[in-house]
């Protein structure tokens, strides 16, 4: 019996599922043993979950499809603003606070943006158009949100009613659920026929196209799913902040941290971004105590260093060490 379970887990496909389920169970019961309202651990995990969601989105478009997007912070911010705007303008007539309708709409707004900018940017064969284009979009959105003061409140931003706050519990569990959702979405997409096409595109677009893969369709799809994940993460974070402004939700750190987490953990693997998110959130949580705010340039430099010296991330270290022994 034990043998059977052991060999089941050792099968590579099952290892990921096993550890995800095990991790989910452990994280689900942690609040039972901690002082949820006061514990730093709960806040740390909440932040880690949010990072996992954004990082998995980037993992899909960049890690699996090979298209370097630099727009995750724009989608994250757009998601946060969408949540605030729907609430403040009483648009959906639903509950607003932790309202699934609002959260889904906050994911869909970035999807619409991703499709509109993705089609022209991704139809070019050269990847740098996409990287610079998506970076530009982030900057344009910041300017628009700063200037459209009547709607967005400019630099001061938007305030949603913080009196609804009761406990850290819903934040923690929603974060956990979203992280599991993000992992599952990326897992199942990459293991389906779509994942097949994405891997082919990453290796050789021209060859993929001449074997019948409609490359633009799959690139835009991966980009849009990534945008959706960033958007719902932004929505959850908006509920936590209550005060949404360009500085807090469109900050470049929402772009660089998730990328750093992916490259550190291992891009194009399902568990890489998860490992990276835990690792980097821990480091930055300590760092924040000393530096107050890590400058985006620091994370930019770190990304380059990791990609140079650890191109396959933590996940890849095992293989690299094993192959060195040969």
């Amino acid at each position: 019996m034990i043998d059977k379970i052991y060999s089941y887990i050792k099968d590579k496909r099952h290892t990921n599922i096993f550890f995800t389920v095990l991790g989910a169970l452990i994280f689900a019961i942690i609040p039972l043993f901690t002082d949820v309202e006061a514990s730093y651990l709960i806040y740390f995990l909440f932040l880690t979950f949010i990072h996992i969601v954004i990082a998995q989105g980037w993992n899909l478009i960049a890690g699996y499809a090979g298209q370097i997007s630099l727009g995750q912070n724009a989608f994250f911010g757009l998601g946060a603003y969408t949540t605030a705007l729907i609430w403040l303008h009483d648009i959906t007539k639903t509950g607003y606070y932790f309202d699934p309708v609002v959260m889904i709409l906050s994911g869909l707004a970035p999807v619409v943006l991703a499709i509109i900018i993705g089609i022209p940017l991704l139809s070019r064969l050269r990847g740098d158009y996409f990287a610079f284009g998506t970076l530009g979009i982030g900057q344009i959105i910041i300017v628009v949100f700063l200037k459209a003061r009547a709607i967005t409140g400019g630099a001061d931003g938007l305030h949603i009613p913080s009196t609804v706050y009761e406990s850290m519990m819903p934040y923690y569990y929603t974060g956990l659920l979203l992280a599991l959702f993000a992992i599952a979405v990326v897992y199942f997409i990459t293991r389906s026929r779509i994942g097949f096409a994405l891997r082919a595109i990453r290796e050789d677009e021209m060859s993929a196209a001449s074997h019948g893969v409609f490359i633009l369709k799959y690139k835009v799809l991966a980009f849009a799913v990534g945008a959706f994940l960033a958007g719902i993460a932004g929505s959850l974070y908006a509920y936590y902040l209550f005060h949404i402004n360009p500085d807090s939700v469109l900050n470049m750190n929402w772009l660089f941290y998730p990328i750093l987490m992916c490259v550190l953990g291992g891009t194009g693997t399902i568990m890489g971004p998860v490992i990276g998110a835990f690792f980097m959130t821990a480091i930055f949580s300590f760092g924040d105590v000393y530096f107050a705010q890590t400058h985006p340039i620091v994370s930019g430099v770190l990304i380059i260093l990791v990609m140079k010296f650890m191109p396959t991330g933590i996940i890849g270290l095992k293989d690299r060490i094993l192959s060195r022994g040969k």
Partner: protein
Amino acid sequence: MDSSNVVLRLDKICKSFGGLQVLVDLDMNVERDEMLGLIGPNGAGKSTVFNVITSIYRPDRGDIFFLGEKITGLAPHKVCHRGISRTYQLVKTFLKMTVLENVMLASVYGGKHPDKGTMERALETLELVELTPRKDILATHLTLSNRRLLEIAMALASMPVLTLLDEPMAGLTTVEIHKLLEVIKRARDERKFSIIWIEHRVDAILDFCDRVVVLDYGVKIADGKPDEVANDPKFIEAYLGEPAA
């Protein structure tokens, strides 16, 4: 020529890169089940013909007709779905995928074939090129010769009407070439499809093809049965330089 038998027709194709005119008013036909050889010196524009047919490049002028329909400017994946597959001069297999995954990709995305499942087609074509024993290894671990065979299998997995082979023998040993020719022969016996075959080994082309087209500086200088072409003074001139005056 019975025009209903023509699967592919190029009509006055022109293509240039910058100031360099690579294809000049090229007319060319491929008939059903025909093996057409395409030869010419280095830089004659042979690979460009393939890139134009498969819509990697759009011709500056002229049109391409496939099975009676105009396909000029159609997206590359749609050209594939219509029934044209190809290999590349510099082999383009997916190195990080297994052999079977490579062929699966081609059979899954290459077009709909209601009579046969994707897996069945993939396994069948692997069998055809004799790569079944290697189906689970990564393409990066294959020899050049096997990678060429794999790319041919990928081209055949979509059940094409026409397949374009760009120098499949380049860099192979005599033994490997022999095997490759056998595979192509067997494939043509088992299935019906047309081939355009680019090759530097003129002798092989003259031996194997039903018809040969010779390109020189983007201009078609000969088109006919192998023995006719072999005796064509223009062909001899292109290959052996200036004829003795």
